[in-house]
């Protein structure tokens, strides 16, 4: 094994040693490396000291009330999720019904000039095309996003 590979291995073993996860068969190997590379012994001591500091580090405890309400808050979110789905479904149906009624009333209204009718339909058609385009783009991007499953 090359020196750099030995040191790499030794550093893994140092981590295992200070975390008390060193297997019996690795102890002898680490001891050999520590004798061979004195600078690693120094690293070992520094890491040990550093770990004593980080292990004593705790977050300030939260009031019990936070935990008492925790599940209730999650439950409320679950319930609201269902509420939003139902609301969205109803709103979409009502929106399309409203649009249909509006188009129907414009078509039969003889007092509205033909060019106003044309402008209204043009604006509506534009909105529909833009909406479809945005939805299609979102769907396409989601399907072809190469990194969507990669956890960074």
């Amino acid at each position, binding site marked *: 094994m090359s020196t750099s590979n030995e040191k790499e291995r030794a550093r*893994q073993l140092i981590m295992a040693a200070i975390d008390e996860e060193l297997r019996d068969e690795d102890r002898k190997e680490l001891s050999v490396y520590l004798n061979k590379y004195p600078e690693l012994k120094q690293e070992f001591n520094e890491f040990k000291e550093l770990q004593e500091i980080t292990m*004593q580090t705790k977050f300030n405890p939260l009031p019990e009330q936070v935990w008492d309400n925790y599940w209730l808050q999650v439950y409320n979110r679950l319930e609201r999720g269902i509420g939003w789905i139902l609301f969205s479904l109803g709103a979409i149906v009502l929106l399309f019904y409203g649009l249909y009624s509006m188009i129907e009333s414009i078509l039969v209204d003889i007092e509205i000039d033909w060019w106003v009718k044309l402008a209204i339909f043009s604006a509506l058609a534009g909105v529909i095309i833009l909406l479809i385009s945005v939805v299609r783009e979102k769907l396409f991007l989601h399907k072809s996003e190469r990194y969507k499953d990669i956890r960074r």
Partner: protein
Amino acid sequence: MTAIELPDDKELLRRSIAGDKDAFGRLVTRYMKRSYYVARIFTGSHEDALDISQEAFVRLWRSIKKIDQERDFFPYYYAILRNLSLNSVRNTKKRAIPFSFMALDTVNEHADTNTADTIASQSELPALIEQAMRQIPLEDREIILLKDMHGYAYKEIAALLSIPIGTVMSRLYTARNRFKQSMKEIGYEHLE
């Protein structure tokens, strides 16, 4: 008097998959503290950690039918929590809000409290750790605190991060080395 046997995680997960919200609630209650404090590692803020840890439970519930009931529950949850937390941190950076790290409370039960120097360094230590932690990459902070603050075993960290145990050891070395350098740079002089 016989002790009441509490259902284990697998049983609660099985019942949750079957649509039992109470069982899911018990899982949430069992893991809420751990979840909150893990989210706190990433976000630093209490409000964000609470919000993200709860949102992760909601997302888990929505996709619970896809979970393999024979596997451990927490790694599934952790993957969702981690993604939400990283997104939140990225968005926070985009909004240019100063990243506020944790309010650390260092418990120095075993430290020698006799000298004035020690007392001074003890009171400064949480701030130094906070500052040093802020200077290292998020992934480094994550693995150090999963090990040293939460006390996860290598095997558990490997499962949570979906990496081999050897990589856990290497990443811990890299992370701790950066943290050590960071501590030295900000003036912590005891690492000799």
